[in-house]
Every structure is written in structure tokens, then in C-alpha cells.
């Protein structure tokens, strides 16, 4: 297993190769990408920042916990920081497991833990020139 906080573009296909093994019947690759809209507002790009030293430790801990819980060491995750354009990957998670159902569950568990715990922040840039920190925990009924 391996995890990294990176500033260069993530090579998703390379991560998939890292978790391949003849003991695995299923490989799952999750790629989180910058999309052009959030809560109805046109988005032009996202700046990701982090408490980098802590994010590295926390990400490594999440990977180790997921490996132990789902019984596979074939897990690789990279989270990118910096200014990302539309369509660029912010996070890539690769999981390999003997069984497909467990591979899906492990991938999704890792993603949800990462979103809950990783000290990473994003500021969206909008078509009207404004920028805003995103708070996924905030309720914004007006934009739903």
C-alpha cells in the first residue's frame, strides 16, 4: 500500500498497475475530478490546499485501516494539491482484492473516510470571477 499528497498531475493508469496482482479478481479505480458546476453555479477551477504534514499522516492511517478492515494490501491513493482545471483529477484511489464486492466496499470506504478526515480544503473559482471556500458540511438549501 502507498499514499501520497502530490502537487503534480496524478497518473491514474499507473496507480491501477500498482494494485494489480494474480491474487486479485477485481481492481477498482476511483478518480475524483473537477467538475464544471457546484450547487448550480458554473465552476472554472479549484484550488486545493492542505495541512500537508498532517494530511500525509492521516491519509497513510486511512489506507492502513482500510487494508486491515477489508483484507488487502493492494491499495494506493494520491491526493493532489494546487490549482486544478476542469476535468483534472484531485484524488485517485486504486484497490485490488480477490472479490469484487469487497473491492467496491473498500474503495468507497476509503473515499468517505478521506472526505471526512483529510485536512484538505478547496476554494472554487466561479464564472463571475468570485472565489469561495467549499464547506461540504454546510446546508445551502437555496442552492439545492
Amino acid at each position, binding site marked *: 500500500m502507498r499514499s501520497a499528497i502530490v502537487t503534480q498531475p496524478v497518473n491514474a493508469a499507473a496507480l491501477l498497475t500498482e494494485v494489480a496482482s494474480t491474487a486479485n479478481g477485481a481492481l477498482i479505480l476511483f478518480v475524483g475530478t473537477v467538475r464544471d458546476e457546484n450547487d448550480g453555479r458554473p465552476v472554472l477551477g479549484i484550488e486545493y490546499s492542505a495541512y500537508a504534514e*498532517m494530511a500525509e*499522516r492521516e491519509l497513510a492511517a486511512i489506507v492502513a485501516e482500510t487494508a486491515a478492515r477489508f483484507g488487502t494490501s493492494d491499495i494506493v491513493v494520491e491526493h493532489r494539491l494546487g490549482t486544478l482545471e476542469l476535468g483534472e483529477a*484531485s484524488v485517485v484511489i486504486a484497490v485490488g482484492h480477490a472479490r469484487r464486492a469487497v473491492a467496491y466496499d473498500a474503495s468507497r470506504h476509503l473515499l468517505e473516510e478521506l*472526505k471526512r478526515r483529510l485536512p484538505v*480544503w478547496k*476554494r472554487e473559482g466561479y464564472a463571475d470571477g468570485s472565489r469561495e471556500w467549499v*464547506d461540504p458540511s454546510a446546508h445551502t438549501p437555496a442552492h439545492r
Partner: protein
Amino acid sequence: MTITALLFASYADVLGRTSLDLTLGPGATVRDAIQQIRALPGGERLPPAPLVAVNLEYASAERRLAPGDELAVIPPVAGG
């Protein structure tokens, strides 16, 4: 004792800086440190009990601080 507090993202914006040194009495907790930060100009825009980490690990408001600790005040996370 003196401890360093780190501020990030929206919290760094409202306080106009990314770090500051705090002087606290012996036995001070995370809660005491946060009260001091919230008394600074702009600090009132932080929640009363924000997420914090001490020395790179999430910590509770009751956590006692020691000299040289690195306290990070963590805005709502948005990774992924």
C-alpha cells in the same frame, strides 16, 4: 508557555495570517487557546469549538497543551 497555532483556508483569511504564537498559563487546554484566538480581530468568525489537531493528530477541546505544541485550527475539510 508558548505554543504555535496554525491557521488554514477560510480561518487564515478571516484572521489575516497563517500562524501565530500564543502565551498560555500552565495546564491550559485547547479550549483556552481557541478562546484566545477568537478574541483576536476577525477571530469571532471562528466557531466556538472548531476542529483542532495537536502535533498532527485530531484532538479534543479538553486536551492539555504542553510547551512547543503545534496547534492547528482546522476549517471544515473538503478533500476528495
